[in-house]
């Protein structure tokens, strides 16, 4: 597996905060969990209506998803398993070269 399979179980989710309160809650949880923000480039840009894509490591997904459900913040899973997506997107040639 590429990258020693480190991205197995990681997900990428999309959130669009409906209110400023939700945006604030997301900023708070981002600071706590230190998740990888795919867009926007900085958490400071997140406000009501901002399309926000977050890469969640497998070991943080339970905490984050529980928080989102508790806060009634809707989200959509963009990438179910980052490792699979990574390997699917690369040709055999690329994977062979990298190994």
């Amino acid at each position, binding site marked *: 597996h590429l990258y020693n399979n480190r991205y197995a179980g990681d997900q990428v989710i999309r959130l669009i905060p409906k209110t400023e309160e939700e945006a604030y809650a997301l900023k708070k949880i981002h600071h706590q969990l230190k998740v990888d923000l795919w867009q*926007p*480039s900085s958490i400071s840009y997140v406000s009501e209506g901002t399309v926000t*894509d977050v890469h969640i490591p497998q070991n943080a997904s339970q905490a984050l998803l529980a928080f989102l459900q508790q806060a009634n913040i809707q989200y959509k899973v963009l990438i179910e398993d980052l490792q699979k997506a990574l390997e699917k997107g690369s040709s055999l040639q*690329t994977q062979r070269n990298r190994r």
Partner: protein
Amino acid sequence: SVPGYNYEVYHSLEEIQDWMQHLNKTHSDLIQMFSIGKSYEGRSLFVLKLGRRSRAYKRAVWIDCGIHAREWIGPAFCQWFVKEALLTYRSDPAMRKMLNHLYFYIMPVFNVDGYHFSWTNDRFWRKTRSRNSRFRCRGVDANRNWKVKWCDEGASMHPCDDTYCGPFPESEPEVKAVANFLRKHKKHIRAYLSFHAYAQMLLYPYSYKYATIPNFSCVESAAYKAVNALRSVYGVQYRYGPASSTLYVSSGSSMDWAYKNGIPYAFAFELRDTGHFGFLLPETLIKPTCTETMMAVKNITMHLLKKC
């Protein structure tokens, strides 16, 4: 242009540099490779000068890809652009005109250390790989390290953050090298194009304020036509406009710096997609992404050659 080189897969830094060396040897009529400096980890910062050699004065276009390490479609496009230029120079009147009248300075991988690190260790690495004496975290956001509204909105003073602006502007040797080159050649560089991912946007200054640039009508017209040309290929929509209103107000980026330093056409492309794959754009989508983006870049270049 290079037998056996596959432009529809992502390549390691070594492969890209070997490719550049090969072109330098085999296409010396149209290509010159040179280094503008060294990265933090000591790697050469290679640039290709593409265009018909001429003793007469020629204007130039600067293109860089891979400021952010994980945005692999950027370097893939830079390679595609060179390939297309060499392949169609004789058969395409527009390309012939472009290469006869202009030089293109192409930097396929701006953030060489970060790109190598994303290839070997952390696929989602963004920053450079410089060290910080006080923190264990490495790297600076190379697009927040420019001396234009430095470290303002959306940038961070903390070394462990992905948008860390650095201890001071141009602290990163990669940024310093490019800035020095652009300063030295600013009289004849008429366009600055930087390629990123993802969002499907074509942005121009300003990022850091809502004000309209002095040559707004020319730049807006170029962007409008470029986006239409791009869409004509596969129907893919790109938003376009000033970065501050199309995205958000942020601290100055490379595009803002280039514009502030006298380059009249400064653009940042955010290539495919809009989030379905994000940074993991599959290799099968390299060709359509690059094909449509070529149309946009050719359009901007042809616009540049006309007087506006």
